[in-house]
């Protein structure tokens, strides 16, 4: 699978309200290419709800239903049932939510839909903040990150949503990244081929939210994976397989880059470097990543 093999068709129409450099629209384009026109999206309050642009126009060329912040997965359960009863089981139902609507306010509905075996793909594009409302912290925000509600840096570590999802024992879940489109495409295609609930989380580095230049979205994504801050993996039938660079890191074939190599480019971690280097907190971040991979190795190697 090479980039040139990805289908040409788009669901995203140029000229939307998205920020320049947006990882969400970047990822959505690839997701759509793996599913095609028979796709319905349920979108809770999140950046995408704004990216759709203003009524009476929309920047999306597939049926898209907006819903309240906490209700994406529940709405998707209803849409799936309605389409099935209308004889449209050929349509793929996709809930497309941010980390806020997934980790926090939306976690109940998500857990319910997974337990109920709803036949849909839940995709969380994770920019590690409540980006749409102005960069407030979420359950996905990493330790020590500046947000508008954690001005001195977040004092807690982020949730391991991937592990929470695995505890639901659904047919398929995966972690992906907007910087790895071939990997994301394969994962969405795999999810589409399986019946039942599927969950894919896409690391989505946000230029205004993380405070980096808008041309660096892809670089921040690759560094997230190369430093081990984000792992690419798949869970299927209770078995976890790591992918690409993450697999090499898991197997010890390559060393993950120091976490400093990722956070030093992001203004949200600036206070760890200026005016003085906060060696203690940077070490805490590194230790946490190291521990995460120790756990990964003990569980999945």
């Amino acid at each position: 699978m090479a980039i040139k093999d990805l289908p040409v068709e788009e669901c995203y129409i140029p000229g939307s309200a998205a920020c320049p450099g947006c990882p969400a629209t970047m990822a959505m384009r690839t997701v759509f290419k793996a599913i095609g026109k028979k796709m319905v999206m349920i979108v809770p309050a999140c950046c995408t709800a704004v990216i759709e642009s203003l009524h009476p126009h929309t920047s999306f060329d597939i049926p898209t239903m907006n819903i309240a912040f906490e209700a994406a997965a529940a709405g998707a359960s209803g849409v799936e049932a309605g389409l099935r009863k209308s004889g449209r089981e050929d349509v793929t139902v996709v809930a497309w939510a941010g980390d806020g609507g997934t980790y926090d306010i939306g976690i109940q509905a998500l857990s319910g839909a997974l337990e109920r075996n709803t036949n849909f793909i839940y995709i969380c594009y994770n920019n590690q903040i409540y980006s749409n409302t102005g960069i407030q912290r979420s359950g996905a925000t990493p330790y020590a990150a500046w947000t508008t509600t954690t001005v001195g840096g977040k004092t807690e570590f982020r949730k391991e949503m991937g592990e929470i999802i695995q505890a639901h024992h659904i047919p398929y879940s995966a972690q992906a990244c907007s910087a790895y489109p071939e990997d994301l495409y394969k994962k969405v295609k795999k999810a589409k081929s399986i019946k039942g609930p599927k969950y894919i989380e896409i690391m989505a580095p946000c230029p205004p939210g993380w405070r980096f230049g808008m041309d660096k979205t892809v670089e921040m994504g690759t560094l997230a994976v190369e430093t081990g801050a984000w792992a690419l993996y798949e869970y299927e039938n209770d078995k976890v397989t790591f992918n690409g660079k993450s697999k090499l890191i898991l197997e010890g074939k390559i060393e993950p880059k120091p976490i400093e190599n990722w956070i030093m480019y992001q203004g949200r971690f600036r206070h760890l470097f200026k005016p003085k280097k906060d060696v203690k907190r940077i070490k805490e971040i590194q230790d946490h990543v190291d521990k995460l991979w120790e756990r990964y190795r003990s569980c999945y190697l």
Partner: protein
Amino acid sequence: MKKYDCVTTISYPKKGAMGKTGNWRVFKPILDKSKCVKCLRCWIFCPEATIIRNKDNSVDIDYDYCKGCGICADVCKVKAIKMEREGKRK
């Protein structure tokens, strides 16, 4: 496109739903086709879908909507795309 008669928030697809977003640009991507190796990285990574993929996998840029983020220049491995400051607004 069938239009529904119901008075509620129903919206229909439109190119440039927020207008000609090309006027957001401060920097503009300039493509040197002689350097392009048709890897299509710029095409797949463009958040605005304004890199037009031609049948022979060469690319063109839709300047009406390109927001000038610079990702195409950043991901191009052969530096075929350079970001240049926009001239005076027309």
